[in-house]
């Protein structure tokens, strides 16, 4: 599943990706905090919409991101034990 930056701020869609809570190849459960972005005086946690293995991180910490940018891909067929 593709993880994209949702529209969280009407004023300005730009944000900075500040922190990944998981690394590539790690298992993420649905609803867990996946990534933190900062926008417009706010730090915002984005939760994983599904369970699976964080297969690919597409944006690095510190990168400027916009609404609908692809942040990561999660393999829903991946298991906790690989």
């Amino acid at each position, binding site marked *: 599943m593709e993880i994209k930056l949702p529209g969280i701020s009407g004023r300005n869609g730009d944000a900075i990706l500040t922190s990944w809570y998981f690394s590539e190849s790690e298992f993420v459960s649905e609803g867990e905090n996946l990534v933190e972005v900062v926008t417009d005086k*706010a730090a915002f946690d984005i939760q994983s919409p599904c369970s699976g293995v964080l297969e690919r991180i597409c944006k690095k910490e510190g990168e400027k991101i916009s609404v609908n940018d692809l942040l990561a891909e999660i393999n829903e067929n991946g298991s906790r034990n690989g």
Partner: protein
Amino acid sequence: MDVNDLGTVDYREAVDVQHFFRDQRIEGKIEDTLIVAEHYPVVTLGRTSGEDSIIDAAYFEDLGIEIIPAGRGGKNTYHAPGQVLLYPVIDIGAKKRKDISYYIDFLETTVARSLGRIGVAAERTGRRGVWSGGRKIAFIGIAVRKWVTFHGASININNGIEAFGHMAPCGETDITVTSAKEILGYEPDMNEFKAILADQFEMDMKEYYRGAGEEKIKVG
């Protein structure tokens, strides 16, 4: 709406309380809640504090004032007794406008109107925060988890403002900071201001989120 006045507490203690209320709100165990507090002197660094967050570290070190990271948006700021901290724990995801900028607009409006009620002419401008006569009097830095807010606003009421001259508040190097005491020439009553702030917050929330979930707010 429930209002919890923590009194004057260590910054970290207030963060722990916010996390507790935030998690309770996420789990639906409590309604929207306001936390107000004052903090012992401390400099906090928001999530985007960087090299542009100029701080005269030696000045704060000499005074024994810690410089610590904070899990909110924004850059650096200073807290001390006499400054009112407003930490709303609000489920904006349950309301029609799931929009962080809109929420911050609302927060700034509430602070400006509350200051107006104690005789301080304050306004929102094109820059974040709340301003009075071109000087910054309140600072914004929030965090949101599962659309529940925490952190919030700090408002200079009776605190000294000299420390702000030893840093670039919010990373801004071209601003002057003020306080209600400096503007009014006397010290407004802190408890009265906190009560006004809570009252104004509730009124403005109905205005900003009218028809968008205000039935979830417990009044009284």
